C-alpha cells in the first residue's frame, strides 16, 4: 500500500516535470511561457508608439495637462481630429496621395512583369550581365541619380507633375524596381515549360502566351508587387518633395509641414489659448495620415507576408 502510493507520487512527479520542462526542451509549459512572454513583451514595445498615438489623439488639453490621466482619456474628445483633418486638408490630400502612389505602382508592376518574364523564359547574350545590373540598381542610393534626373526632368518640363515619378517607374527604374523584377522572375520560372510548348504548337505567339498563360499564373505576384510598390511610393517624401515642389502633395508631405500649416490656419497671437498646437492635435494628424495605409494593410496583410516568401530570396 505504502509502496504504490510512493510509486504513484513518483509517476506524478515525472509527469509534472515533463509537462513543465518538456520532453526535448521545446514543448514544456515553461518553455512555452517563455516564448509567449517574449513575443507579447516585444510585440508590446513594438506597437507602443501606436498605442501612445491613439491615446494622445483623444486627449483634450485638460487631459494632457493632468498627470493623473495616463492612457485612457476622461472623455471622448474629437476636437483634435477635427483640427488635424482641416490642417491636413484630408480628403483632397488623400485623393492626391492615392493618385501619386497608385499610378506609378501600376506602371512598376507592369514593367516588372514584362522584364521578369523576359529574364525568366528566354536565353540571350548578356542576360547574366543584365541580371547583375538589375540587382546593382538596388544598392545605388537615389541621391546619386537625383541631381541629373532633376536637371533632365526640368528640361523635359515634367517637374511638378506625376511624370517625374511615372517615367522612371515605367522603365523599371522606380523605387526598388529590382525587387519587383526579382519577384516576377521567380514566379515565371515556375511556369511549366510544357504548357508554353503546347501553346506554341497550337500557334500562339510569345505575346499571347505571356498574356493568356503566364500572367494569369502570376496573379499573386501582381498583387504583391502592386501593394509593396504602392506603400513605398506612398511613404516616399524625399524625392516627392524635390520633384513635385508645391504642385503635388501627399499625406506624409502634409504631415511634414503640419506645424507650419497649423500656425498659418490658427494664429496663436489671437489670444485664444485653445488655438495653440498641442501633442493631441499632432498625434491625431499623424494617425490620420497613416490611417489609410493601416486599413489597406489589415485588408491585404497576407499578401505582404507572402510577398517575402515568394520573392525567392530564400532559394527554391
Amino acid at each position: 500500500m505504502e509502496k504504490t502510493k510512493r510509486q504513484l507520487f513518483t509517476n506524478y512527479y515525472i509527469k509534472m516535470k515533463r509537462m513543465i520542462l518538456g520532453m526535448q526542451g521545446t514543448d514544456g509549459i515553461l518553455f512555452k511561457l517563455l516564448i509567449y512572454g517574449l513575443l507579447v513583451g516585444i510585440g508590446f514595445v513594438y506597437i507602443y508608439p501606436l498605442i501612445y498615438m491613439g491615446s494622445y489623439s483623444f486627449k483634450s488639453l485638460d487631459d494632457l495637462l493632468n498627470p493623473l490621466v495616463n492612457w485612457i482619456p476622461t472623455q471622448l474628445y474629437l476636437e483634435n481630429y477635427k483640427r488635424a483633418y482641416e490642417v491636413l486638408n484630408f480628403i483632397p490630400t488623400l485623393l492626391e496621395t492615392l493618385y501619386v502612389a497608385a499610378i506609378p505602382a501600376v506602371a512598376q508592376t507592369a514593367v516588372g512583369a514584362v522584364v521578369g518574364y523576359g529574364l525568366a523564359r528566354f536565353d540571350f547574350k548578356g542576360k547574366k550581365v543584365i541580371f547583375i545590373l538589375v540587382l546593382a540598381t538596388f544598392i545605388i542610393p537615389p541621391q546619386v541619380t537625383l541631381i541629373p534626373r532633376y536637371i533632365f526632368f526640368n528640361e523635359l518640363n515634367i517637374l511638378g507633375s506625376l511624370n517625374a515619378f511615372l517615367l522612371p517607374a515605367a522603365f523599371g527604374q522606380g523605387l526598388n524596381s529590382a525587387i519587383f523584377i526579382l519577384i516576377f522572375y521567380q514566379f515565371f520560372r515556375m511556369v511549366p515549360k510544357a504548357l508554353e510548348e503546347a501553346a506554341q504548337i497550337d500557334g500562339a505567339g510569345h505575346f499571347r502566351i505571356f498574356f493568356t498563360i503566364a500572367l494569369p499564373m502570376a496573379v499573386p505576384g501582381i498583387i504583391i508587387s502592386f501593394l509593396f510598390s504602392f506603400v513605398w511610393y506612398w511613404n516616399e517624401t524625399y524625392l516627392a518633395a524635390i520633384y513635385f515642389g508645391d504642385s503635388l502633395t501627399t499625406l506624409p508631405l502634409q504631415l511634414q509641414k503640419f506645424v507650419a500649416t497649423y500656425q498659418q490656419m490658427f494664429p496663436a497671437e489671437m489670444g485664444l489659448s485653445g488655438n495653440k498646437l498641442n501633442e493631441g492635435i499632432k498625434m491625431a494628424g499623424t494617425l490620420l495620415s497613416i490611417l489609410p495605409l493601416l486599413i489597406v494593410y489589415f485588408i491585404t496583410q497576407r499578401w505582404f507576408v507572402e510577398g517575402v516568401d515568394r520573392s525567392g530570396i530564400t532559394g527554391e
Partner: protein
Amino acid sequence: MKSKLASRNRMIGLLFVSPWIIGFLVFTALPLLYSLYLSFHRVKITTSGIRTEFVKFGNYQFAFTGDSIFMDRLTQYIEEMVISVPIIIVFSLIIALLLNQKVKFRSFFRTVFFLPVIIASGPVIKELMDQGVTTIPSIEQYAIYQMLNANPEGIFNGMLLYLIKNLIVILWFSGVQILIFLAALQKMDQQTYEAAKIDGASNWEMFWKVTLPSITPMIIVNTIYTIVMFSIFSLNPIIEHIQKNMFKVDTGFGYASALSWIYFLIIAIALALTVGAMSFKGKSKYS
C-alpha cells in the same frame, strides 16, 4: 531551322527586357555618369542653361577639409549604422526563431512585426521621435541613463545613448528581415534536425551547428537589405545635408553631386566589407 528559331527567341527575350535596358541607360547609367562629371565641376545655373567649370578634386577636397558639418554627419551616420545593423539582424533572427516554434497566433504576431514597414515614413517617425515615444518607456528614471546623459561626448556613451533613445525605431526597421528569416527557417530540412537529435545534440548545439550555418546566405541578404534601407531612409542626416547643399547658392549641384558620390562609395564599401567578411567566415567553416 532550329537555330533560326533559337535566334528568334533570343530577339523576343531581348524585346521583353528592352524597357528595362532603355530605362537603365536613360534614368540610371547616364545620370550616374553625369553626376560623376558634375562632381568635378562648379555648377552655375544661369538663364541660358547650366554652366560648368572644371575644379578637379576641389569639391571632394572641400567635403573632407572645409565642410565640418558633413564630416560630423558622416561619422554620426557610420556610428549609427555600426550599432543599428547588427542589432536589427540579431533581433530579427531571434523573433524569427520564436515565431518558428509551434506558437498559436503566429500570423497575428507576424502582422504586428511587419506593421512598421507599412507606416514608417520619414514624417511619421519624426513626429514619434519628437514625442519621445521611440525610446523605452520611462527610461529617464534609471540611473544608467542619467549617468550616460551626464557625459554624452565619448563615442561609446554617445552610441549607447543613441541606442537607448531610438531603440523602437531601430527595431521598427526589422519587419522585412524577420519575414525573410522566418521563410528560410521554415524551409529547413527537418531530417537534419532529427539526425542531429539522434546523435544527441541539444537544441543549443543544433542552433549553432545546424541552423546558423544553413541560414548564413539569408544573413548576408538581410545585411545588404538593412544597410541599403538604413542608408536611403529620408531622416538620414547625410541625405538632409546633400539636399540642403543642392539648393545653396555657393555650393550647388556640383558639390552636392560630390557629396552623393562620397556617400555612395561609403555605402558600397560598407556592403563589400560586411558581405566579404561574412562569406569568408561562412566558407572557412565548411572547408
